C-alpha cells in the first residue's frame, strides 16, 4: 500500500461516515510516519485497520461493510478499510509487541491537510 492510497481511504471514511477523528492501527499506520518504507511484510497490506471514535463497535462494523473486503470500494480500488475495535487481536500467538500502533495525530492532520 502507498501513502496516497492510505490518504484516499482516510478521506473516504471521513466523507462517508462524517467523522474526522479516528485511529489507524496495524501495518498501514506505518505509512503515516514513514511514507516510503522499504517493501516488505508491512507494506504488503492492502487493508487499513480503523478504530472509529469512541471505539464504537457498530461503526467499525459499518465501515467494514461499506468499505471492507469485497465491498464495491474494494472492487473498484483494490484496497479497503477494516473497522476494528481496540479488542481486535493484531499479534500472532507468541509474538509480543505494542498492540497500539496508533497514528491518529499525524493522520488526523493528513486528512485535514488534504480536504
Amino acid at each position, binding site marked *: *500500500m502507498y501513502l496516497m*492510497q492510505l490518504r484516499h481511504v482516510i478521506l473516504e471514511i471521513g466523507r462517508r461516515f462524517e467523522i474526522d477523528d479516528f485511529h489507524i492501527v496495524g501495518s498501514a499506520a506505518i505509512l503515516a510516519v514513514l511514507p516510503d518504507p522499504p*517493501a*516488505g511484510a508491512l*507494506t*504488503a*497490506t*492492502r*487493508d487499513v485497520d480503523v478504530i472509529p471514535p469512541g471505539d464504537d*463497535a*457498530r461503526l467499525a*462494523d459499518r465501515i*467494514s*461493510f461499506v468499505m*471492507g*473486503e*469485497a*465491498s*464495491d470500494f*474494494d*472492487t473498484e*480500488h*483494490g*484496497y479497503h478499510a*477494516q473497522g*476494528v*475495535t481496540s*479488542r*481486535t*487481536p*493484531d499479534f*500472532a500467538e507468541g509474538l509480543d509487541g505494542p498492540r497500539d500502533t496508533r497514528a491518529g495525530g499525524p493522520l488526523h492532520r493528513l486528512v485535514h491537510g488534504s480536504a
Partner: protein
Amino acid sequence: MREDQRDMVLRLLAAAPAGLSAPELARQLKPRVSQPTLWRLLDELRHSGRVIVQGRARATRYYSSDRTDVASLRSRRLHEVVARKIARDPSLAGEARERLRRLRQVNPHGRVYHDRWQELLDGPVPRLLRVMTEDSETSEALRKESPLTTLVTSDERRRIFETTRAG
C-alpha cells in the same frame, strides 16, 4: 460463580479454533449450567466483545475474540462461498486471474502473496480450494491479499456480515 463460568466459557472457546456451538459448550462445561444461563453468559460475552458469533439458530457457532477477529472469520466465510462456486465451475478461476493482475498493479509490495495465488490458480483445483478455506496462519495471510472475493455477490456478502458478528 458467574465469573468462573464466564472464564470457563472463554477458555473452552480459546482452545477451539473452529469455534463451538452452544450444545458443544454445554457438554464441556463442568459443573453443568442450564441452557438459559449459558445463553445469558454468551450474550454478555458477545456484548463485551469477548465472543464472536457466526451463523443462525442451530448453526450458530461461538468463537473467542482473543483467538480470531471478526474480519478474519468473515474473510474465511467469503472464501468458502467462492470455493463452492469454483468447485462447481473451475473456469471462474479465470476471473480471479484478472483480479490478480489488477492487485499486482495496485499493490506491488504484495508480490510474494500474488505469486503464491498465481501458483494456486494455475495448479490443481482441490489444492486451491483447500488453501482458500483453511484455518491456518498461512491461509489467513494469503486471504488478506486474495484476488477471489470479487466472485462473491453483494447479497452473499451481506448475509455473511449479518451472520458473523461481534459486540
